[in-house]
């Protein structure tokens, strides 16, 4: 077993993939907890799909698709987030519209671009095994920014997540914190897109915190456990994917989903026990 593992990780692309998945797990564990607790999972889905428009545009213009994705995800995060703050129900439609526009724009630009396009599928379904050292640096940077922001503003983040009105009355900078949080979601979505693909990003953002909160009742703890769970899903997914020659992204998501179902069962048992 150990021998097999050392063989697997003797390949540089596997070591890179493992490292990348750790950075992504860190960012997703923290940001995903905020997403789940603020109940903005669908908004995050909107950001992820709007980002695809950026991928297409950048590809068409001959730029790095990651740059395009970063730009689109940030802008769409700010637009949808502002709408969401004004009216939670009204934003729902806008999120759906931007979701589809992002995809449509992406696909149109990609079909306008001549040449070989297999690479672009990787943004839809992920290609962790093709992570470059530049990607790794970007992931590390974003994970670090997310971590630093949450450590520095933890109490404010907790406050606006739990009771926005009270925070406003205390003159906490609710808008600034909320929009910063959305930008972080956008950044995290883009880096995770490299790994599991934008279609499955939402699972990596929402499942680990959903599992973690069954066991923990503290935002900090949920963030940490989400990171650990996510890291386990990713590492395990990488190994299974290597051994079975199945694409990594879907394997990771299936592992996470299985854990989620188990956690639901555990929660049922816990509540049944209490009564």
């Amino acid at each position, binding site marked *: 077993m150990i021998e097999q593992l050392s063989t697997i990780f003797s390949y540089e692309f596997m070591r890179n993939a493992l490292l990348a998945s750790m950075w992504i797990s860190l960012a997703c564990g923290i940001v995903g907890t905020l997403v789940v607790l603020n109940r903005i999972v669908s908004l995050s889905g909107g950001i992820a799909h709007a980002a695809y428009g950026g991928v297409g545009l950048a590809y068409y213009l001959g730029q790095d698709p990651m740059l395009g994705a970063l730009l689109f995800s940030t802008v769409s995060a700010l637009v949808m987030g502002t709408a969401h703050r004004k009216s939670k129900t009204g934003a729902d439609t806008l999120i759906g519209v931007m979701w589809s526009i992002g995809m449509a724009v992406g696909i149109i630009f990609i079909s306008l671009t001549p040449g070989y396009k297999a690479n672009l599928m990787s943004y839809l379904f992920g290609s962790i095994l093709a992570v470059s050292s530049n990607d790794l640096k970007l992931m590390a940077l974003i994970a670090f920014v997310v971590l630093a922001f949450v450590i520095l503003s933890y109490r404010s983040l907790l406050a606006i997540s739990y009771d926005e009105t009270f925070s406003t*009355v205390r003159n906490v900078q609710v808008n600034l914190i909320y929009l910063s949080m959305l930008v972080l979601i956008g950044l995290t979505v883009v880096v995770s897109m490299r790994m599991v693909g934008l279609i499955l990003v939402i699972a990596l953002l929402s499942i680990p915190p959903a599992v973690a*909160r069954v066991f923990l009742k503290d935002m900090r703890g949920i963030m940490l456990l989400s990171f650990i769970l996510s890291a386990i899903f990713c590492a395990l997914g990488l190994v299974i994917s290597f051994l079975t020659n199945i694409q990594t992204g879907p394997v990771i998501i299936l592992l996470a989903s299985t854990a989620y179902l188990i956690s639901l069962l555990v929660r049922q048992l816990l509540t049944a026990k209490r009564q």
Partner: protein
Amino acid sequence: MQNKAVISIKNLWAGYDSDTILEDVSFEMFQEDYVGLIGPNGGGKTTLIRVILGLVKPDRGTISVMGMEPYQGRKHIGYVPQFQVEDKQFPISVWDVVAMGRLRPSIFANFRMSSSDKQAIETALDQTGMLEFRNRTMNELSGGQRQRVYISRALVTEPKILLLDEPTSSVDSHSSTQLYDLLAKLNDHIAILLISHDLTAISTYVKTIGCVNRRLVYSGTKEITSDMLDIAYECPVDLVAHGLPHRVLPSHQEGHQHD
């Protein structure tokens, strides 16, 4: 200070978009006051709270809190919101909820809590008898206990005014009696404004009563005048059912269902 209003509202109109919810409201409240405002659901109680907290701008008229614009004056208001059902899902401890009251406005200024912050939180929890629950999570508490936590959170801001929105809506009657006893004690040094649709509870404990239903009737007494009833309830059946049998209620058209 004795005669200076802590909240002063003059000829205020407010609402959302073109929908006017409060009409020509005037109201003054002083440091030693304990005011209960009643009114039916949808009558503008929440809007009035939001105007006082500076969350809704008035269309016409003026409002000042501690002689300032609401968005500045609100730092002197200890706001005790109604507990929302969806809040129950949120994983947060009693201590962390009360600690919200010590947040500084600047985003990174809350990295660490000072020892005076911690002291203040302990004192506020002690005042409401919730200190032993400090490490519990909110969803383990009863309705009455949650209200006490919210009152602690308001107290920790060192308020001049306590503003409570339906404080007993999810609280059993025994706990609600305890809650009102606590408020009476706090009223020694804090002005209290309490807004509710439950007349009986309010009328037993507050010093003065007013009614709000689009307009506001408040005369600074504890009498429930027929004026108040006229504006507050289309049909006074609810009042009869809740008590106050000594009041002679003005006759109204029958067959109306309140609420």
